[in-house]
């Protein structure tokens, strides 16, 4: 188990390093000049003071050779310093830390909601003996994955805030303002989870050991809880790991529509202002969330199915 974890952690560290490097190459070497963008003179360059430009270049280290810039930034990043935001001047880590709690809470609620919805649909669809109910339930996930998140947010606003007046439309005050954003984030994610979970449940219901248990007289509820769920849950867990990334991406449009502060909002504004250090910080954070979520999923799967450990780390 320890060796397995160690291997996974090393792979994760590599992914983080590569995400940092790739975003450095992408963001620092491409044509648009960050200093000119910062002075709001990208493209024109007429009324820019050359002395000011040179000073800013020195301040951000853009006047140094690329490899030196890279090494010093990598070294700083290892110490938890991702530079300063170009629009506010605050450290990137401070900006991200300020935005993280709001999105974290929203994401947590959304993931829990998504798991409940997905499991509900998948278990109900695969357990029911009514053909029409099964067909109806299994038609929902494909619909869910085709709906744009930003549009879903607007539809929910339209119905629950403007038509029915049940929930607040904008802002982040109180728990009622969390309901619509959480549903917005949860529905598309639950749709892809439900698809995987339902097909995995179907495959497990048809497997020989379930047939055996049924032949020995076990009833369906007992079959489901004792035999089927534990064996069918592995693919669903893998998808749940990827889900966190999808929720993070979804938070960009969700927070934009509902006017909530958070990581998604930070990302949206950073891209709009071409605030490159903040964008890089968020990219690395997204990779870190992916790595940690997958590590968590691996550990959970190893506990649920010990065969994975003896088979060696994939």
């Amino acid at each position, binding site marked *: 188990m320890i060796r397995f974890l160690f291997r996974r952690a090393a792979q994760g560290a*590599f*992914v983080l390093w*590569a*995400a940092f490097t*790739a*975003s450095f190459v*992408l*963001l620092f070497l*491409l044509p*648009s000049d960050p200093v000119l963008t910062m002075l709001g003179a*990208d493209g024109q360059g007429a009324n820019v003071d050359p002395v000011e430009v040179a000073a800013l270049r020195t301040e951000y280290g853009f006047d140094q050779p690329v490899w030196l810039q890279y090494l010093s930034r990598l070294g700083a990043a290892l110490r938890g310093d991702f530079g300063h935001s170009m629009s506010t001047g605050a450290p990137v880590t401070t900006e991200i830390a300020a935005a993280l709690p709001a999105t974290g809470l929203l994401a947590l609620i959304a993931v829990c909601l998504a798991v409940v919805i997905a499991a509900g649909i998948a278990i109900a669809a695969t357990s029911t003996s009514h053909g029409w109910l099964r067909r109806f339930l299994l038609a929902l996930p*494909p*619909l869910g*994955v*085709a*709906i*744009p*998140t*930003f*549009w879903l947010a*607007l*539809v929910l*606003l*339209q119905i629950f805030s*403007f038509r029915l007046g049940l929930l607040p439309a904008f802002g982040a005050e109180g728990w009622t303002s969390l309901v619509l954003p959480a549903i917005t984030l949860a529905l598309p994610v639950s749709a892809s989870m439900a698809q995987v979970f339902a*097909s995995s449940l179907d495959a497990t219901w048809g497997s020989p050991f379930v047939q055996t248990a049924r032949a020995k007289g076990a009833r369906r509820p007992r079959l489901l809880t004792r035999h089927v769920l534990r064996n069918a849950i592995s693919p669903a867990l893998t998808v749940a790991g990827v889900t966190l*990334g*999808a929720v*993070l*991406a*979804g938070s*960009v*449009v969700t927070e*934009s*529509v509902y006017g909530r502060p958070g990581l998604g909002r930070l*990302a*949206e504004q*950073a*891209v*709009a202002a*071409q*605030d*490159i250090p903040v*964008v*890089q910080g*968020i*990219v690395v954070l*997204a*990779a870190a969330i*992916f*790595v940690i979520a997958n590590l968590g999923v691996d550990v959970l799967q190893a506990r649920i199915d010990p065969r994975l450990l003896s088979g060696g780390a994939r």
Partner: protein
Amino acid sequence: MSTLTATVRAAGPAPTEAPTASPLLGARLRRTLTRPGGISLILAVAVLVVVAAFALAPGLFSTFDPTATAPAQRLQPPSGLHLFGTDQLGRDLFSRVVHGAGRTMFAVGLAVAIGVVFGSLVGLVSGFVGGRLDAVLMRLVDVMLAIPGLLLAMAVIAALGFGITNVAIAVGIASVASFARLLRADVMRVRRTPYVEAAFAGGERTGWVILRHVLPNAWGPVASLITLELGQAVLAVAALSFLGYGVVPPDPEWGSLISEGRAYLATSWWLTMLPGFVVVAVVLSANRISQAIQRRDGVIR
């Protein structure tokens, strides 16, 4: 007619046969219609054909100039004259959706093309050469898959700047990894088959073997991924231009149309709802066709 359907069914043992001459087209259509889910498949194809027609010849379908303002006609609900109603400047929303199809579909097409070309190139090289190069390329692909597609596209936009072409490039780059991984797996499978070994043993050149033997046989799953990514690209392009990274305001585009309607959400539901339905219909159709291709190829994912 039922006997005809029956004979056609009996005569055509494999539903996967290649498209033949046009006299059989009616029979093929009928056969598809009678299969379970056949109607939805034909509807899906029809939706994409209509949208492609919108994109190619918007003038044929729209009765109004998409940018002509008519202050007296502002914020009219849908009617026989204005199918989708009018916006805050009195512009006909249906005409704007029709004219916006070109821009959206251009971006989607460019994005998918970038994903297919670069993804296939990486996948082909990785799967064919193998060894260290394969290991390095696949670790890169892993990293790209570790970052959510929308965030990756946003990072590319931060570097390239705004505009619908940059949005398309960003979405395309974000989809390279999944094409690379898929083609690599199939190239590896095909490379070890006897006919490829035989071609090499026969002294054929590597480039020729790849073009003639490896690519055609490894291509199958990519076709279904292309249609799937088409739907995903519509979602991504719409989301990015909804956030305001795409077109310049007076030009219509689906994501920005929905974004413009946000301010009138409380009073004029059609401004956001109806363009959104069009996006959903296109994505659903692309996903349905992708599923049909997978079924035909016997892939169950």
